[in-house]
């Protein structure tokens, strides 16, 4: 009887046991002004939460034994989440959160909780950049033939009479097949529309 009474008492004491989870955010990335942590909160499951002081310290009070996920809610930075295990004696264990398994124990230092990165909430606006324009496929399609047209002939030695001859022959054979219209001619006929001009031009060529 007495023993069971003691057990009951012990159990009730255990039920009332609560602990304070304390920690400190690392000052990495955070500028050390007073406002740096002005809206940063620390959240545990079941509505437990704490506020971060100007020096980065935080405390979550009256936490009952159990296993919790500790999250730092910051407007600017992303922090590692921490798995907080509190046993019935009020002993606290901190480890890196791994949602896939409960067994893995990778300790994490909550007295110097490191941010991972600055949170990228927003998309970046595309800005006009010459390099980006050059990289675009349309521009590449336009530029490559230009290179072939203008640069390649210059690279070749035009003084060599044999090569010159060969080229001329090649040109002749090519011109035979397709009648490629002259660009400026095409444009002027398109917009000018004065057809009769074509005849004298041909005459000139024949001359």
């Amino acid at each position: 009887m007495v023993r069971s009474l003691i057990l009951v008492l012990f159990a009730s004491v255990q039920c009332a046991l609560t602990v304070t989870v304390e920690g400190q955010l690392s000052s990495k990335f955070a500028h050390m002004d007073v406002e740096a942590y002005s809206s940063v909160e620390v959240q545990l499951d079941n509505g437990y939460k704490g506020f971060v002081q100007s020096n980065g310290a935080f405390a979550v009070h009256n936490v009952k034994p159990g296993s919790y996920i500790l999250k730092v809610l910051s407007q600017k930075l992303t922090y590692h989440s921490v798995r907080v295990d509190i046993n019935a004696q009020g002993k606290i264990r901190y480890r890196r959160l791994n949602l896939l398994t409960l067994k893995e124990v990778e300790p994490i230092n909550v007295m110097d909780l490191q941010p991972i990165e600055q949170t990228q909430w927003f998309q970046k606006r595309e800005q006009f950049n010459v390099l980006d324009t050059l990289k675009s496929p349309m521009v590449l399609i336009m530029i490559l033939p230009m290179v072939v047209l203008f640069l390649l002939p210059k690279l070749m030695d035009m003084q060599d009479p044999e090569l010159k001859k060969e080229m001329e022959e090649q040109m002749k054979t090519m011109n035979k097949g397709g009648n490629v219209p002259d660009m400026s001619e095409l444009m002027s006929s398109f917009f000018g529309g004065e057809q009769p001009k074509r005849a004298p031009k041909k005459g000139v060529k024949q001359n």
Partner: protein
Amino acid sequence: MRLISFLPLFGLISALYQDQVGKVDWKLDVLGFPKLAAFDDANAQADAIALYTEQNILASVSAEDGSVFWKRTMPVSEKVEYLYYANKLIISISSGGIARYWNPESGALFKEVYGTLQSQLIDCARLYSKSIIICAMSNESGMSDVLVYRERKTLFETKSSILVEKIITNEENNLIYLLGKTAENAFVMEALNIDDFSTEPVQILSEESIILREFALVSDGRLVFTDTKAKTRSINLKDGTMTDISAVATCQVITHSQKEIKFAPDQFFGNCGGIVRSESGEVLDGRRMEIFSTRLGTVTASLDAQNGWTLTGVNAKKTASLSFGGSLVQSLWTKSYNWKNKEHLQVLAFSEDGTLFFAKASSEASTVAWTREESLAAISHVQIFDLPPEDALLEDPSEWSFSRRVQIQLALFHSYINQLTDKLKSGSLSEKKNGDPLVSTSELIRDQFNLHKLIFIVTKNGNLFGIDSLSKDIIWKRRVPELKECKTQVLKDAGPRFKSDIYIVGNCNNQVKYFNVDIMSGSIDELNNEMPKSDILRVDSIRSSTSSGAPALLVFKKVDVGKVGLEIVGEIDTAAADKIERTSFWLYDSNSQALFGGKINIESKTFKNTWTFQIPASMKVSQVTAAPASDVLHSQGRPLADRSVMEKYLNPNIIAVLAESKEESDLEQMFVNAFFLDGITGEVIHSCNHKRAQGPAKIVVAENWAVFSYWSAKMYRTEVTSVEFYKGNDQGNATHWDALSAEMPVAIQKSFISSEEITSLAVTQSQMGITNKAVLIGTKSGKIVSLPRVFLDPRRRLVPASTDREEGIMPYQPELRFPPNFVLSYYQNLGPVNDVKVAITGLESTCTILGLTDTGLFWTRVHPSGTFDVLKDDFDHMMISVILIGFVGATYACKIFAQMKMTNRLWQ
């Protein structure tokens, strides 16, 4: 690595640009019903006012315009008991004795101080000269600990030999009086020295115990109180003598919060059955009196018969009168300060209808400077309405003749020219618009894309609000006390034309209230039909095709266990009756946890129950839901890599029931069950069971799929399950869904781990259903996340097949992460999101959403597939025009050059 090859899939996800913040979204901060307030009484020009509300929110608001500087939801395990504003810091003292020092404007936590936390806070007092706060706690031995909070020093703890009940300070004598009782229940006083907190011997005031419930401190050092026998007595703290006061012997002492003798009023007042008397027994004006003891002196406020307040300033010289609407004022706070050699008063009043008033009063003028609507902290119903279209759009375009069309186009062109000339005249053409770039007019008419809406809100205390979705302004507010604590419902009145008057039904303690509301103006009429009174399950409306009045009501009632009765309010014509008799109904009774389905007979006024689905008593139903009525399905099947099509199960009548076990401690006995029923036959088409899981469980249903979340008690994490229903490969050619001949669907199901605790689930909608769906997840950490549904595809495989990429299925990964650019509420901490409401817009790509939390509303819009039907807002019209003009110019230049070249050639 595997994910990288699937990245092109998400190129369409459109997050917000930083410069768009506040243009398409807004947040309406609500604080709740104030319990404590504190002014900076030492600083005449202080702009901030500290507030603590019943919703457990600590906030600082601007005295200038009532805007919120900052607000913090306090942890659930603690309540703020004392609030001070001293030395340009807001100091909150929570249960357990946790003191926090906040910056009034930025909300930065300067310091947090706490003791052992296992004891209970009894009373606190503030020392004005040293900016010290003294609190008494009860400890395990039955005596009190005294905690001294000092702004720049560490916490000082000392023990008292008595159980303290009240702390009174006397800074002139350098003493703190601790009043309380000994172990023998004698009423005693112990004095502490302010400098070193050393104690003086305990002085017995009375042998019998005294409870100080109503008490007031008087500046001559007396503590006046009403004892348990309703007699007024006083203790002289300086010599410890106790006397009865005969003049106001049977009156209740009017209390005030001052605990410093120096600043206490020089007399006390008693409330004698609605009559206010002064210490000498003199009857004062007013039926209610509030006393505020400030650093400058005592301010009194008395309520007159016309609900107006008369304020008497320090030295009883200046009076001002104020009135705070028609409602009863629940609580009042004031600050008195001198400005330009004149006394000014600031008054904060909270009235019963949920309005917070802030008034400035001086001998010359007294005005209410601003008001805040705090009843929005407890919302019972929200609906988003389209605005009325302009006249031209009211007509059906298919009926237009050619000349009519030309006329309308001309009219539109004319109005555009008019707008343009107006802008040119006022010089606002080049001004950058601050508001939504896609909404052309801020008037309350439907805009081109139907993005501008009207939010209709019913609060739990019976207030109705109409809120403009563009400016977040409250357009109208109506108080309908009849709708207090009611389950409100807006009756669907589907019609091709816009109507601004709607009908709402309130189910108030099993009594039906029927109202007609004009959502544009807020005018409201109660329809006094004969209303049914007991056990109402559901109310529906039927509009007769002939009459234009209020629609008739179908009231489903619980008659007996498992039996549903029907009552009809109003007239139903035969055409409507015929239609309604062919419709199947389902209803849910939350008391007996049962679903009923069946048809109704108008003539005999009966409900013919065809099926019942009873949830066992060992389970607790978390949610019963169906797909939204506006849900449109665009494609009937899903093409597979082998060029066949997997047909979707297109049952429009799926009802989802999510239930959890009532077990709270034994992990092995916990479970969460999801049932999917056919609404016509009551057949269970699919059910799933998750062991070792518990609530909070949420579910959302759309098209041929459902997503639900629950807490995995074994693994200590939130999990999400996604279910999809398919019919198989054979193509049905039916144009209608036939519930009776439908075959059982194939259900594909997969579970994921969520990295966030989920408090609400919703789904995006669009006009045609072409846009991909995104699941809107409201989290405990105060975010609204828009998660594209591809992530929740149950066909994601751990080992991807070669065909998966072609079908756009990602490889399975157990953990669902929510990248920051999926968060619609970006860096705002909204507080736990209770619900997300979705409204369709005129743009296929876009829907608008309203997030509801206990501490406010959040409005924004979502593009689940990107903004494919609208130009990006950074589209550069100028650049395009310059290039176009440049090209035309260049062409003409070419022509001239070509001509010149040709002439030159001819001349050669």
